[in-house]
């Protein structure tokens, strides 16, 4: 429905709340910045199922090409075979826990990776069925509910526990998604890119929160779409952090990064993210945490 010209948001999912009017948010140990790194393990399907929705500029390979596209499929598979391990080593070196957004096809078909992520203490959150199948309003409510549930079921089966968080493939949502996620037992969602702090969403009885990603620093947005150089990407990461660190003195900030191991995990890109994270951790006043840890803390502060 088009917007009505009245106060506040033109949707029911959360309140209007400019950051300058909020009470100060404090992180553990008075950290100025909570740092959350989301690593996306998503499978590119060989053939897109009929009726599935993909964005037209879905990245990987040389460009979207006709079937069979060995290039894009295998370029993305690089993340599962090589890139993820490089990134986990870098995060571990800096003492940053990983939050892994894992789709159902990965959870079902890569038991080695699931075990590896669990052994290293990563939090695993829902990420739909595959990157070839986004949630959109083309789905009926029943289809969307089934899609969300099948993703949660795959992760629960693979990891032994139900995911607490969710990030839709390519940030895909319908106008029902927050409510359906909350009803399925999810506590927080990473699709909403409109803030530098978590915020509550109005989804019904269960508390449900947004954990906003900083969209411009998303690796696909920066590197694959805007074509920023690796050096410039490193500079954007560190300069963003520095501003959040300054602003976080008065009111704590969140820096949530969304990275694909097939992209930033490439050999020629890894040093840049390693150095950017090193800059952040050396600065002090940073709380590196998983999505759930951040939401749990946030909830304890606002209630």
């Amino acid at each position, binding site marked *: 429905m088009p917007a009505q010209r009245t106060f506040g948001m033109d949707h029911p999912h959360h309140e209007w709340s400019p950051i300058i009017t909020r009470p100060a948010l404090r992180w553990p140990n008075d950290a100025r910045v909570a740092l959350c790194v989301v690593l996306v393990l998503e*499978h590119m*399907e*060989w*053939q897109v199922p009929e009726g599935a929705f993909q964005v037209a500029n879905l990245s990987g*390979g*040389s*460009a979207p*090409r*006709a079937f*069979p596209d*060995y*290039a894009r*499929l*295998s*370029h993305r*598979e*690089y993340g*599962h*075979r*090589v890139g993820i*391990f490089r990134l986990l080593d870098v995060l571990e070196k800096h003492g940053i826990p990983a939050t892994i957004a894992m789709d159902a*096809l990965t959870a079902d*078909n*890569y038991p*080695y*990776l699931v075990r*590896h992520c669990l052994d290293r203490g990563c939090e695993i959150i829902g990420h739909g069925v595959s990157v070839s199948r986004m949630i959109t309003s083309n789905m009926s409510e029943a289809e969307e509910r089934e899609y969300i549930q099948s993703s949660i079921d795959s992760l629960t089966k693979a990891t032994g526990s139900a995911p607490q968080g969710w990030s839709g493939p390519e940030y895909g949502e319908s106008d029902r998604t927050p409510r359906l996620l909350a009803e399925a037992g999810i506590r927080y969602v990473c699709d909403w890119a409109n803030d530098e702090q978590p915020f509550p969403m109005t989804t019904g009885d269960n508390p449900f929160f947004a954990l906003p990603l900083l969209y411009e620093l998303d690796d696909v947005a920066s590197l694959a779409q805007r*074509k920023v*150089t*690796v*050096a410039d990407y490193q500079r954007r990461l560190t300069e963003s952090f520095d501003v959040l660190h300054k602003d976080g003195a008065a009111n704590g900030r969140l820096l949530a990064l969304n990275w694909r191991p097939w992209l930033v995990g*490439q*050999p*020629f*890109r*890894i*040093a840049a993210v390693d150095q950017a994270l090193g800059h952040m951790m050396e600065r002090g006043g940073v709380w590196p945490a998983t999505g759930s840890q951040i939401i749990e803390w946030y909830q304890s502060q606002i209630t």
Partner: protein
Amino acid sequence: MALPPDRIDYLPIIDRPVIKWPNDARVALWISPNIEHYEYLPINEGVRDPWPRTPYPDVQQYTYRDYGNRVGFWRMLEPLDKHGIRCCISLNLAVLEHFPEIAEAMIERDYDFMSHGIYNTRYLYTCTEDEEREFYRDCIDTLRRHTGKQLKGMLGPAITGTVNTPDLMAEAGLIYHTDWFHDDQPTPIKVNNGGKLVSVPYSIELNDSSVLRDNHYSAEYFADICKAQFDQLYEEGAESGRVMCIALHPFLIGQPHRIKYLEDTLDYIMAHDGVWQTTADEIAEYYIANYYDQAVAHAQRLAQ
């Protein structure tokens, strides 16, 4: 992964047989110039338009690429020769028929050749199985006729293929396919006829076509990322050998404003010890002789 197309077993880089290259090299480096010809009046078979900008011919885009054969190729040879690089050419085989001076220059330097199709404007998408069989026969015969060499591998024409491609390549006696970007080491590709086909990592990232043409970066940036790639793989290659490919197109890297960055890149890399400067032919043969069976067995154990 057992997911379709079920061609590549899952083998995490941290848990697989350790690769030792000849002379304990850390990085197997192959340089792959794409020596291509794009037709003036190609046939659009309806899947991908060879010249989407205008009705054919598109003189601007045709000549932009043909510049590579008339001028850029010869300029590109200078930094390659300076370092004695033995290239593995990604070859549109019709170039051997059209442009004998180019053929001679490549043969004289003892380059290896992988097929990159007959023309870069003839894609595999619409090939029937028999047409694709005939295509491999043509590629093999043409290379042998002009160079005396046995064809061993392929980068699909304009990176195209069919669902049958790996099976039919193996059936034709080819041993490597470079359309796969999933790894920093060779990996077995499953085929239906008992042949041994491997993926040798080509690059869609360290590729002047993606970096300079599609994504509009500078040649200085291209050199920067090639060096950064080398540094990372060189470090990791101390534990288990890695492959690095730099993919070139003479109409791009051979432009006057770009050539010095190829020289910079090669100056940097070739100053290191522990680099096996080789070709995809040699990497594939070495891997099949020494690691193919181990890798298959290891993947089977991991899957249990």
